[in-house]
């Protein structure tokens, strides 16, 4: 076996095996958390180790690296509570499957993708009571994603492309296949929502970059229309939500739909798309981490039940304000530079869709600031017991912010997913698969 073939296997194996080993520490929360944090760091180490041996289509070292980094970040801020342990173990399991979907050069990639969607669907099924009817929609959508990947594995090329696009739309959310994503972000326990906020779009985006060049014009046009609809839909839904997680989830749907639209127009996933995707996912993830910190303190309550946190929780106030700035696309954070990169890309053409994008942007500045303003300002509720962020919690949010700033200021070429000139040797796992090579 060559290094090129063993590297992906090692990448998959490390997090999954550590997760399995973690089962033995099920009852000891502190050691379990430390073990899983170490496992995340080791996973990151394996990427560094295998960087040279990874296939060219692996999504770039950057996207791969984000998975263990975010596994680490989302685990770091978690309180030691028995209810969180399953989520922690699943995080590592999903990290392994994510590595498989991103880095494997063969059908293993598709299988990992399939398993990943299936696992998320199963988790959602297990916790279906937490998010009501939305859970069933989410399970259904994820089920559709699983079937679509299956069809892509065995179908004729034309069907495979469509099926795989649908599967990608489930993970990298596109209306009307977004429910799996939004349900996962709003209904899952522990750190899973904040981790999946990054994992799912990255996996879907990676698949999409492979299938996009093969798509027919009619399909891409339809996708473009859906993307604009999704942008509007996500913005409007976010405006009327009364739960912070839902606001963030639908807001990120709107922002990710913008990326769908840009991809359709450009027909190419340049480095600026990676910056944008990573930044939006990180900002979403950061806001969900922040929200979880409130949820851990005050229970599962709505936005109206909390206000005036700036006074008793100054650390939280600063962190969440900066995250909101990042999420609505203010410089120097990555969302801003990613979006500017999209607009200024040579392949980008200005169309009427920009009006929708501007509306989405304006409404985001409304609902996200409204969210933050409502939480931080107003009358401080003295009847509640307030406790500001601990060191670990603050560190986890600080890492997200540093990453967002890094995305905003670092040279875009560092995020090139292709590694080669377009049109030469950029065949992906999906393209190499037998069904499409007939």
């Amino acid at each position: 076996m060559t290094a090129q073939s063993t590297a992906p296997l090692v990448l998959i194996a490390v997090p999954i095996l550590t997760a399995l080993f973690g089962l033995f520490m099920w009852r000891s929360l502190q050691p379990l958390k430390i073990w899983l944090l170490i496992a995340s760091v080791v996973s990151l180490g394996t990427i560094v180790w295998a960087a040279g041996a990874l296939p060219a289509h692996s999504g770039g070292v950057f996207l791969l690296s984000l998975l263990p980094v975010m596994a680490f970040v989302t685990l770091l801020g978690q309180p030691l509570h028995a209810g969180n342990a399953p989520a922690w173990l699943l995080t590592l399991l999903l990290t392994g499957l994510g590595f498989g979907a991103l880095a494997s050069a063969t059908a293993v990639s598709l299988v990992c993708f399939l398993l990943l969607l299936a696992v998320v669907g199963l988790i959602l099924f297990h916790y279906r009571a937490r998010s009501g009817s939305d859970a069933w929609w989410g399970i259904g959508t994820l089920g559709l994603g699983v079937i679509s990947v299956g069809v892509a594995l065995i179908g004729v090329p034309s069907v495979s492309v469509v099926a795989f696009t649908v599967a990608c739309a489930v993970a990298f959310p596109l209306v009307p296949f977004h429910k799996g994503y939004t349900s996962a972000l709003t209904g899952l326990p522990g750190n899973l929502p904040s981790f999946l906020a990054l994992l799912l779009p990255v996996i879907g985006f990676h698949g999409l970059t492979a299938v996009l060049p093969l798509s027919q014009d009619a399909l891409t046009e339809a996708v473009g229309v859906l993307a604009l609809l999704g942008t509007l839909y996500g913005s409007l839904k976010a405006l009327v939500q009364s739960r912070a997680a839902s606001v963030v989830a639908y807001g990120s749907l709107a922002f990710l739909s913008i990326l769908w639209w840009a991809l359709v127009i450009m027909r190419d996933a340049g480095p600026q798309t990676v910056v944008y995707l990573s930044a939006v996912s990180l900002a979403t993830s950061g806001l969900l981490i922040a929200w979880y910190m409130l949820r851990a303190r005050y229970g599962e309550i709505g936005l109206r039940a909390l206000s005036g946190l700036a006074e008793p929780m100054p650390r939280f106030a600063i962190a969440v304000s900066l995250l909101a700035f990042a999420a609505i696309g203010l410089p120097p954070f990555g969302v801003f530079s990613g979006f500017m990169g999209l607009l200024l890309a040579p392949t980008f053409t200005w169309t009427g869709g920009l009006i929708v994008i501007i509306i989405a942007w304006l409404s985001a500045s409304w609902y996200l600031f409204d969210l933050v303003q409502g939480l931080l300002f107003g009358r401080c509720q003295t009847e509640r017991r307030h406790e500001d962020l601990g060191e670990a919690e603050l560190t986890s949010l600080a890492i997200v912010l540093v990453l967002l700033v890094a995305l905003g200021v670092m040279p875009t070429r560092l995020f090139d997913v292709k590694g080669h000139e377009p049109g030469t040797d950029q065949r992906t796992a999906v393209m190499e698969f037998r069904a499409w090579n007939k």
Partner: protein
Amino acid sequence: MEQVTPTFDLETLETRRMELRGIVRLAGEVIGRYWPMRTFVHHNPFHSLEYLHFDETVRRGRRFLGGQGYLSGETYRGYLRSGRILLRHVDEALRPLVREDSIIVGPCRIAHREVLRACLTHGLCAAADEPFDALLDQRSTEELIATLADHLSPVLRAPTMEHLIATAVREDTEALGRYINLSNWCDCTLGTQIVTRVNNELIKWCEAFLDEGHATWPMPGRKQGFYAAWKSLAAREWSPCGIKESRRKITELPEHPEDAVLESLAILGVPNDLRQDYLALQLTALPGWAGFIKWRAEQQNYAWQQAYPISLVKFLAVRLWYVRELVQQTCHEELGIKGDFVSISAYMQDHPHAYCLRKEQVAGRLPAAYAEQVERLSRNRGHGWKALADRVHLDTGPQRDRSLRLAAARRLVRLAQALDIVPTVLLDGGPNDLATLVSWMEAFPESDHGPVWLKSFEAGYQEQLLGMLMRTASTGTTARPNSSPSVRPDSQSVFCIDVRSGPFRRHLESTGDNETYGFGGFFAALIRYRAWGKEHDTEQFPVIMRARNEVREVPRSYLDHMVLKHTSRTKLLHAGHTLLHDLKENVITQYVMVESLGWFYGLPIVGKTAWPRLYRRFTGLIQRLFVPPIATSLTVDKLSPIDIQEMLVAEQRAAIRKALRDELGVRGSRISADFIEALRRYALNGQGDMEVSLMSAAQELALSAGDLTVFVGTLRSRYRIDQRSISWRKERITRAGFTLDEQVVTVETALRMMGLVRNFARIVLFCAHGSTSENNPFESALDCGACGGNEGKPNARVLAMIANNQKVRERLAKSGIEIPSDTHFLAGQVDTTTDDVHLFDLEDVPPTHRKDVARLLDDLREAGQLTSQERCSRFPEVKETSPLAHAQAYVRERSADWSQVRPEWGLAGNASFIIGRRELTKGLNLAGRAFQHSYDYREDPTNRLLEVLMTAPQVVAQWINMEHYFSAVDNEVYGGGSKVYHNVVGRIGIISGPWSDLRLGLARQTVMNGETPYHEPMRMLTVIEAPRANIGKLIGRHEVLQHLYHNEWVHLVAVDPEDGGLYRYRPTGAWSRIYGVREYLVNGKGKESVE
């Protein structure tokens, strides 16, 4: 919607209207009056409720306005930690609440008193909510808490869902109309935002209607009054707030606002017995605008009110229309019921599960899964509410039980820690005993701590102040003092009672043989004043009084030749300002202005920002060069009827001469005096044919009879030469100035009241005060409250001029006040921001007194520097004592700095009012916290003067004190909020940001130093040096005093000259002697200061 058309006869209708006006007046008691910003008047926001006990008023404030009436427990605990509050004072204040019970827990006995004290000092009753699904880290103490929670399980159980629902429905049904209005109910139950939407509409209309010249385009139709103007304009709006068929509905509203209010109340179905509370709730939704309307409606002579009338009834007529329409619409659409009181009450009774679950969902207290089901049931108008409530109970019941016990256990552990008991001992206590401890804590919630803390807080200050006064108070004598003391002081200066005068007086006394006195800054001159060149009068007296005389500033007679130049240049300057303003505001020219003159504005911006003091001096210099100031005098003496007649005739002749020139082009020598006189007489009296002499004179000027008739008409209509105008002018002129009797009374009252009736110095200074700051809408709050929020300069000048009048002195000598002939009275004004003193009318100082004045000026300058130095130490930015010159430069810099949010601390810190001789406070550093009024009980055998002091200056001081109190305890509700967000609106007040209620009270920066209050909010302590019996008689005579003392708005202590003892006046009306302070001073003990 079905309209109610009541059919009452006219008399009944009028009775109902009158009845409604009475109800509205009572409903408006809970909101304070709001004076326009330009004459900011400190006042008690709850002045109308002073007939209630202080604590009860605070409760009403919380109920109607949502304001906190005391500082937070955490702030008080901070004072306790710093030693500002002493534990013995806490114990003393707690005594009425303590029971003699105790509980035995293991080896420890825990007394009820200890539990209550621990609740206060350790905040055990704060933050009681324990989320039932929190996921925080398990701490080391959590194990014990968990065990203790298990230990409590037999006795503590959370109420069932059914019980919670039944309680909520019962309480809310009782509260509807009393604490919650129907729009609030809709917002809380259905998640609407009716209150906000209605508020926004009312803010829009109030801003437009109440504007006093700020708006470039004023609201049309204001002369009709608020309700009619709104009706005519709102009927043209397209569906305001989404109200359907709004145009028709508004057009169909009754003409009378009272009828509209009654109609709205009928449609909303508000029961008669709840109407007052319901209307109070409506008014308190926008207490700022409603407060201003309340004030304005009471000012019948206020020009803006006369032009554009408004009242609370009109305000409510408009507000209630929006409320009723939105409530009806919402209830119909969301619940399918009528939006009235009965239907809503019935809904709560008939659908308790739906009501409570909706409410919980709107409040965000339901977990997401249930919240979504509530939304679905609401959307589909489903019937599964009870099932859902049962499911919530089943799913969350055990967690709620656990959460309740955890909260109790956490409290018990903190109690044990506060009492220095090992927490594990609690496990040895019986569950019932532990539950009793918990119930004691629950029965003393944080919201009940305020009164106890406040008393402890006040006790500390009072003990310190009374301790100081004990040093100076001595057994006096009721005999009048020696009428001819041997040594005359170098000067005597009378300052305002304002707390800021205290340090200045102390320093002035320290610079030489200068005596000082305290007196209301209006100096007994209740005048309406018009400055030279101004078009409006200012009211120079406390707002609780009325003007008696009018005074005008006029140029000194020897400067007549300069008047024309001054007037023309002032007009030119004014015209320039107006032109610039019009160009800036005009729709078209403003764009040109920006391009052409915009850069010019950069100069002042740079100047004001980089070199504020230099810039101020430079602009002052330019202004003086262009319009040189001229010396003025005041029209103090009243004119005799003959003088008035002559003056009017002269005015009319001048007007006719001007009219001939302007209207007919007839000039100079062609006009004879006889012709003018004949014209004047005919314009005033002539009805029939003209006199022959008049006709012939007209012919000489080539004027026909017709021309002359038209001209006379013009004289009457345009130049107001007719009998009616002359009567009006006479009446106005008659009010100007003082008669000799009035002058004598004014001076005598002032001198006797302050106790300055003998041993006059060669120079006596009446020193008013004002302030100078930049970019400060609250500037008038820093001026003299006793002068209606204006500078006191005119009053000081008036009193000095009167006191220098020889005729007045002769009359005063007859009544026992002999002012030596070499005593000269001077007027001056201290700038409380810069501590500079300016003296006025120095032309009138006799040459023999020049050295005296020069010495006084030196002393005043030195006192100003010392005061600046003392004040600098109180600014948060100044960390160490500044040298004198530096301190003076620093306060001047602050005064000129347009970015300075706190040019001076103003009246912040005020806490007491001392009425007595200077001997009582001389040499004491009262830290600028005491109002000081000079009063010598020996000069007041009839108590007449003390009566005035207790019912006037004390009331004003109490208003100032309460304004500061409430602005400090809850700045967001009772104060004005941060200055950073302030915008001036309508030239009447300020709002936060672009759109808000009119902000009441003082700005945050005025009372707070960062997060801690600079102004220590306490009720004022009045100390009166007078026999108790005399004070008691006055209290018995005046209801206002009974309200203040018996309802504990003010604390009263008497320094009884008969035995030199200090006596506290109890709310019961009894006096109790204060011993502890003296003991404390003598032997350092004195644990209990008051018996």
